[in-house]
């Protein structure tokens, strides 16, 4: 695990109210430790996340963005997360084609009962971002 001069990745997390946000809450009430690098924004459904919500922080220099939703088939609104999945595929393709680091944006299905999984996922993301390094967009002049 490389820690470039104490680089602490900044992560923005869009978590769906019914599953992942509740899962995160469970991690908290269970006193599970996970890195404090994330800033959570609660959305009612992962399907409500417009790609611009991920692109803006990425271009502002945030190191990682994670979208959390219910497992496919379990969406509180029936089909929201199926659309999230397709939108995510499109977003990743566009980032790849445009030369951006698509590894900075993650999509994870984490349910309300998966507190441990939430903690583990954040741990994994922080580790991965520390290796990737700071987002070059943070210092880019002409963005």
């Amino acid at each position, binding site marked *: 695990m490389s820690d470039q001069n104490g680089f602490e990745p900044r992560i923005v997390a869009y978590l769906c109210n019914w599953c992942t946000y509740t899962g995160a809450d469970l991690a908290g009430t269970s006193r599970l430790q996970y890195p404090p690098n994330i800033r959570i924004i609660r959305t009612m459904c992962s399907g409500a996340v417009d*790609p*611009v919500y991920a*692109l*803006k922080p990425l*271009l*502002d*220099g945030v190191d990682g963005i994670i979208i959390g*939703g219910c*497992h*496919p*088939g379990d969406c509180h609104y029936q*089909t929201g997360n*199926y*659309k999230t*999945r*397709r*939108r*995510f*595929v*499109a*977003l990743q*393709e*566009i*980032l*790849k*084609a*445009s*030369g*951006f680091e698509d590894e900075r944006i993650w*999509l*994870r*299905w984490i349910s309300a009962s998966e507190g441990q*999984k939430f903690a583990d*996922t954040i741990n994994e993301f922080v580790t991965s971002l520390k290796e990737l390094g700071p987002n070059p967009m*943070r*210092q*880019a*002049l*002409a*963005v």
Partner: protein
Amino acid sequence: MIGLIPVENSEPLGAVRSLLRQLLQSGLVEALFVPLEMESGAITPALVTDPDHLARANPLAPAMPINSARAVSALTGKHSPARLGVVLRPCELRALVELVKLQQASLEEVTLISLDCPGTYEWAEYKTLQHANGTNLTGYLTKGEAYNGHGLRQACQMCSQPVPAGADIHLQFFGADLVTGIPVELDAGLAELLEIAVNTDAAGADRQAVLDPLLAQRAQTRQHDLKAMGEHIASNGGLPGVFETCIRCYNCMTVCPICYCKNCLFSTAAFNHAPEHYLNAARRKGAMRMPGDILLFHLTRMNHMGLSCVSCGMCTSACPADIPIGLVFSMVGEQVQAAFDYQPGKDVHEPLPLVTFETNEWVEIGEVR
């Protein structure tokens, strides 16, 4: 079925005007959307109800001031006002099909007329060409030869779909012998109404002889140009390098046939940042380019319309900063479209990739590997 429209004096424009007049006078359509050539030489798209005005119709002029799908959307978006006929180039037709899927246009009571399109010129270049000698309309229409030795718009040079799909009346210029007439593909009912005789020999063997090398050349140019753009992006500091001269005038968005939002997100208060926003960024980076949010605009636009991009290149033509936007969006568009195995404009019944889904697709995404 294939028919033949008779041509007098090897003058295809006259024959096309007669066809359009027949469409209007027969009552098949109550109004016709077609480019008109004004006295000044300007090519101006117009909705025509009086057949007399068709005397200046000119859909053959190698110029494309707008992507007419936008205009047809204005004509049919809310409802169909009358039986319309619309004359569109292949890329305009594809854009219209996408707009129908986006519920911004309708094909009900619309007769689609399209033609083999050899390509168009930038507006300024076309104006020069008009006054030059040696413009070669027949060679241009039937063989895709340069109108006057000049280069087409880049989008046209790399256009791999110069033949329309899904038109009700398709003027098949490529390989045609304009002395005898213009081959036209249309159904029997239309042919009867327009008094066009069946003529199965009309679209002769010459059509493939012209089309095959043309398509091969276009495919090669397309592949080359897209690859070059990809390499340029990779070696010049990524996408930010391409948009260094962008001034966020929104011309590209305005002329794009697919961008239909009446109030784009980027025109709203969401992007009226507090002054501190800019100062903080400038302090963090040492310097910050203004007005900001330029890459965000383009990447968001790619996400919002990239799957429907038909590569018409209007964006490049409209950019005051000479940024090859159409090339970037075509390159990215092609990749994201391929991920969904989707071809914009091909089939009006094929749903947009982001509007539909399967329960069992991309099952590896989102789960811990």
